[in-house]
């Protein structure tokens, strides 16, 4: 069960690695895209800005390898936070750039409805799902997960949305399309429910 965590120079891979370890996932953090062939699962983490992250995925060679492993070889991938956003067709953060294009949609800034709503969206908030995704197996709907972000995923195809979260109206907090999964929250920091979600992914 090798779970490969993609290292493209942005940080905080250690907490994802530790959480995957706790969930029985045999994690490897990997800088070299050529190593992707050993992976049974891929995790695309990320903090930082969409533009820089895409540049890094391209210059490091991960971009091509991911297209091959995810689209052709159908290796399951989980994008976390910025990693979920990078799955989109396009992201406006940092000046605007094309994403990986795995899930149709774009990533735009959260707009507060009223002046007392603060951005970034930081803290614990509900994840409402409809019980039809394997990612949320044994996780009740409306459980709190930990979020920290200013941008959100706008999905073009409704059927790819598997969870929503109420903030700035409501936004898409998880997507799924075949072997591709993305979550806006941080499962590695969301304690029991987060670990359950990681287990669900690892044992797909």
């Amino acid at each position, binding site marked *: 069960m090798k779970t490969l965590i993609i290292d493209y120079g942005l*940080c905080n891979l250690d*907490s994802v690695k530790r959480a995957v370890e706790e969930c029985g996932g045999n994690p490897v953090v990997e800088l070299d895209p050529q190593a992707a062939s050993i992976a049974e699962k891929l995790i695309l983490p990320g903090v930082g800005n969409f533009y820089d992250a895409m540049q890094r995925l391209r210059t490091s060679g991960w971009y091509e390898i991911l297209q091959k492993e995810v689209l052709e070889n159908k290796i399951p991938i989980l994008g976390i936070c910025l990693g979920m956003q990078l799955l989109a067709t396009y992201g406006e953060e940092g000046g605007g750039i094309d994403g990986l294009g795995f899930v149709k949609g774009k990533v735009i800034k959260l707009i507060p409805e009223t002046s007392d709503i603060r951005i970034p969206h*930081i*803290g614990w908030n*509900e994840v409402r799902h409809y019980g039809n995704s394997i990612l949320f197996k044994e996780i009740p709907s409306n459980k709190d997960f930990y979020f920290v972000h200013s941008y959100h995923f706008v999905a073009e195809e409704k059927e790819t949305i598997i969870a929503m979260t109420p903030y700035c109206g409501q936004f898409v907090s998880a997507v799924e399309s075949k072997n591709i999964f993305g979550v806006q929250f941080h499962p590695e920091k969301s*304690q029991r429910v987060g*670990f359950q979600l990681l287990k669900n992914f690892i044992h797909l």
Partner: protein
Amino acid sequence: MLKTRIIPTLLFKNYGLVKGVGFNSWRRVGSALPSIKVYNTRQVDELILVDIAATQEERTIDYEEIDTLADECFMPMTVGGGIKDIDDVRNILRAGADKVSINSGAIQNPNLISTVASFFGSQCVVVSIDVKKNGNGGYEVYSCSGSKSEGIHPVYWAKEVEKKGAGEILLTSIDRDGTMTGYDIELISSITDAVSIPVIASGGAGNYEHMVEAILIGKASAVAAASIFHFTQQTPLEAKQYLASKGIRTRL
């Protein structure tokens, strides 16, 4: 709905956890790792860890120590102490912190905030602002663990750090710190009115009602506390239950 967070603060000095009063007369309160393990099992919302001696001793925080702690910390963790450039931030995030808290380093070089925000994203930049009342009763920002007066007003500084790209403000009243007499609500309100990023209130919590005031009157997005958890029987979980009974949304 986003929940209001209760955040225990752990302060380091000379390899142990300490807690003082008014940023002074530090008492040893144990070691960090067992505290983190306890907070894990109690489903604490988030943790703040600060090495309070790093800036004054002109050194960086012990990254290996942070790495060890982060490996056991399955909740969001903000780490601060002695951060003065982007390499310090990178090392702390690499060690497993989710956010960094910058105080003196941001005052010395305000562009550090924008540099870190553009590289790692605003969401991981917490700017810590320590405030004390001066002789005329006006508020003033202090750096270097409360030892150096900066001659600037916290409202001015809060707006500046927001403009530079801070994602959150950790606002501490030095006068209330460790006194357990309640948060400085006037100070908190002045900052939450001035900025639109989340503000974490810190300094003075002695009971759960103090937290309610900081949230409902002060409009803080989160409350940090140390003495109440170190020196009394009160716990983060009970605090959340109390807040919930007052109509504040918390994660239970």
